[in-house]
Each structure stands twice: as structure tokens, then as C-alpha cells.
């Protein structure tokens, strides 16, 4: 009796594990589906700026003025509720970076969150946003990255708490939370608004910081852009919907699209205050964008539906 029950239970467990294994097979973009493409390095440089790659991947330095944006040796520690992630080397170094990656490898990483060896990447790398990037932009970015100097030095492995350290389980996370694909323009909106929506939701990945997350670390969709705690738990990232961006503490007017574009260009907010914390790093990148793209981002952010997000601790 007990032996039959035990056998049945073992069989069920084996079936469950096989099912789990199949459901979590990492997706890959094969080279055969990539049409011929001539890389546009100027576009790649714009993608590098709006993507903010340097902010995470540049070799860190205690003196932020000494960080070289084009030296992508990785190593920055990113504390999170799941443990500490260590940002990898994405310089074109053949051994320690992505020098040996194919174009398809890079597209697979940004669109599917899968490594060239076929393993899931942790979504601390914001591929849930990068999956919305157009194929040409991803390929141009890859071409641009390959022009940067190789930086030797492999980065240490992440330091994550069990069971978050099990990469295969990210496959389940992806089933639950990774939906969509390249951005499809809205024919009912202007070209500028579409461009802004694309830059913000795709390469800009603004929502990754400016949104609250659930217990499994996924963005709470209904509160996207409504602010939340920073990943390291030490500071608060503001609500950037019109409900959050007020021109001053006692002002009822939300930031205009010109206010947003101007802030991203030179760091000064509508009251003359200069940006602080992690946003300074973002502006170091966005200040390099063409004026038309900044205007598009401003138009889109100012057009977001006003949303209330979580309340910061201590605020009534």
C-alpha cells in the first residue's frame, strides 16, 4: 500500500520536474532569422546613450569623475532583495568580455534574456525593457560596442540567496512576467510620441527604476512609472507620471514636456535644483542625446496617465 503510494508520488515528482524543465527551456534567436543588415554606428552610439549601458557596465571608481564611459569592464555591485548582482564585463575582450559573441548571441541576450551558452540571464539585466527594442537598433548597438576598447578581467559570480541563485527558475519568472516583443507604433499617436514611447519603454528602460516591484521582483504593471524603493532599499525613486512630477512643492502644475526634456539635457529641474543620486548618472547619458529624441521623451513622459504609486516610508 505504502510502496504503491510512494511509487505514485515519485512518478508525479519526476513528471513535475520534466514539465518544469521543458517549460523553462531558454529561448534563443538563431542567426538564420536575422536579415542582412549594414550597421549604423551613429545610431549605435545613440542607443548606447539612451540605453545607459555605461552606467552599470563601466568599470566602477569611488570617484565618479574618474569613470570612463567607454571602458565596460563591469564589476559594479548591485544589492537587491535577492542578493548582490555583479555586473559583467561587456567590453569586446575575447576572453573576459563579449568579444567572441555573435550578433545573434547579442540579440538573444537583449530580447530573450538568454546567454550564448543557453542559460537564463537574471532580469537585473533589464531585458524585459530591451525586448521592446527594434532589431536594427540592437544590431547597431552591438556594432558600436565592438568598437570600444577591450578591458581584461572577468567579473565574479553573483552572490544570490537560495533559491534565487538557481538560474533555471528564471525560466518560470519569464513565463509569468516576460511578455511582448519589439515595440509596435500606435498609428493613432504622433511620430514624436511614438518615438518617445519607444525610447522610454525600450532602450531607456526608465520603468525599471521608476516602478514598484512585487515579491518576485517583477514590475507591478498598474503602477509603472509611479515610483518605488530603489533596488538597494536605501533611497526612493520618484513617481514620474504627472501625479508625481510637480514643478515645486506647493505647485499644482505638473512638469511640462519641455521641463522633462530640459532636465534630461542639463540636469536642472524647473526650480533650478540640480539632479541627485542615481539620476545624475542617467543625465550624464541622456545629455548626449539629439534634441529631437529628448523632446520625444519629454512629450511621452508628460503624456503618461497620472498614477499613484506606493507611499515612501514616513510620508503621510
Amino acid at each position, binding site marked *: 500500500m505504502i510502496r504503491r503510494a510512494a511509487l505514485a508520488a515519485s512518478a508525479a515528482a519526476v513528471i513535475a520536474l520534466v514539465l518544469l524543465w521543458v517549460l523553462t527551456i531558454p529561448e534563443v534567436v538563431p542567426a538564420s532569422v536575422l536579415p542582412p543588415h549594414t550597421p549604423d554606428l551613429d545610431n549605435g552610439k545613440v542607443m548606447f546613450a539612451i540605453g545607459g549601458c555605461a552606467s552599470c557596465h563601466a568599470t566602477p571608481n569611488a570617484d565618479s569623475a574618474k569613470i570612463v564611459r567607454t571602458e565596460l569592464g563591469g564589476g559594479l555591485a548591485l544589492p537587491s532583495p535577492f542578493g548582490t548582482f555583479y555586473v559583467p564585463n561587456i567590453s569586446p575582450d575575447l576572453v573576459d568580455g563579449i568579444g567572441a559573441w555573435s550578433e545573434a548571441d547579442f540579440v538573444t541576450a537583449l530580447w530573450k534574456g538568454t546567454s550564448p551558452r543557453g542559460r537564463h540571464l537574471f532580469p537585473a539585466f533589464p531585458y524585459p525593457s530591451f525586448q521592446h527594442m527594434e532589431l536594427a537598433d540592437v544590431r547597431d548597438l552591438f556594432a558600436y560596442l565592438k568598437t570600444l576598447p577591450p578591458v581584461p578581467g572577468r567579473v565574479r559570480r553573483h552572490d544570490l540567496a537560495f533559491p534565487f541563485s538557481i538560474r533555471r527558475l528564471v525560466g518560470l519568472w519569464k513565463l509569468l512576467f516576460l511578455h511582448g516583443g519589439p515595440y509596435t507604433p500606435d498609428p493613432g499617436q504622433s511620430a514624436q510620441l511614438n518615438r518617445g514611447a519607444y525610447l522610454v519603454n525600450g532602450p531607456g528602460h526608465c520603468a525599471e527604476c521608476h516602478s514598484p516591484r512585487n515579491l518576485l521582483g517583477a514590475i507591478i504593471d498598474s503602477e509603472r512609472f509611479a515610483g518605488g524603493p530603489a533596488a538597494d532599499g536605501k533611497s*526612493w525613486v520618484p513617481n514620474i507620471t504627472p501625479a508625481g512630477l510637480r514643478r515645486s512643492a506647493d505647485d499644482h502644475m505638473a512638469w511640462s514636456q519641455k521641463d522633462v526634456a530640459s532636465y534630461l539635457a542639463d540636469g536642472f529641474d524647473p526650480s533650478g535644483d540640480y539632479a541627485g543620486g542615481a539620476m545624475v548618472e542617467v543625465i550624464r547619458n541622456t545629455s548626449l542625446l539629439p534634441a529631437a529624441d529628448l523632446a520625444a521623451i519629454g512629450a511621452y513622459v508628460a503624456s503618461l496617465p497620472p498614477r499613484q504609486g506606493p507611499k515612501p516610508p514616513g510620508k503621510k
Partner: protein
Amino acid sequence: MIRTIFVVAAISLGVCTAIAQQDTIAARKALMKANGDQANIGVAMMKGEAPFDIDKVHKIFAAWQDAAAKMPSLFPDNSKEGGETAADPKIWANLDDVKARFAKLGADAKDADAKVTDLNSFKAAFGNIGKNDCGGCHQQYRIKKS
């Protein structure tokens, strides 16, 4: 009687400390707000929304030098808390660096004051101070808690 005096003294000391903490924090915030108000005038000129005015330019750099001179002494140990402040606790672990940054702000503002003659030279000097002096310090030491 003696006990009452002690209790009153203790409460007064506590209240005085709280007021002192709040005064220091309020003083810091007032100086920073003044910096921002002046910066706003500069930004309008940079963007071409207001005409270039050399008197206003001098006022901006004078205000920044004033703040740079006064701020370093406004970080006593007891002012880490006691009011709503965006001053990151890291400041007190790196007080030398923080003071050096204020010295640099003052020096850069003084330099700019002497050198700026027209809109182009103003844009260069103002932009540099904003990005490196304001931004550099804010990036490390300003923490948004709400």
C-alpha cells in the same frame, strides 16, 4: 523641588538640541534653495528664455560662493537626523571630501565671476559648475527618501 528642576532641565536640553538640529538642517536647506533659485535664473539665460544680464550673472556666482563658504560648518554630528533632510549619512564618513567639494564650488564660482563676459562664456562656466560641482556632490551625497 530639586527633582523638578532636573526634569525641567533635561526636557529643556532635549528641546534645545532638537531645535539646534532643526536649525542646522533648515540653514542648509535655505542655502541650497538659494543656490537653486540663482541657478534657475542662469538656466533661463542659457536656454535663451531670458536676456543675458551681467549683473544677474555676478549675483549668481556671488550666491554660490557664499553658500560654498558657509556650508562646510553646517554638518555637525548631531545634524544627521532631527528634520527632513536629503543629506546622505555618507557625508559624515567622508567629511573631508565634502568640504573639498564646497571649496571647489567656491573656487569655480569665483573663477567664473572673473572670466564670464558674454553668453557663450557664461554657458560654458555655468554648465561646468552645474554638472561637476552640483552634480558631482549630489550624485554621492544626496539621498532622496521620498
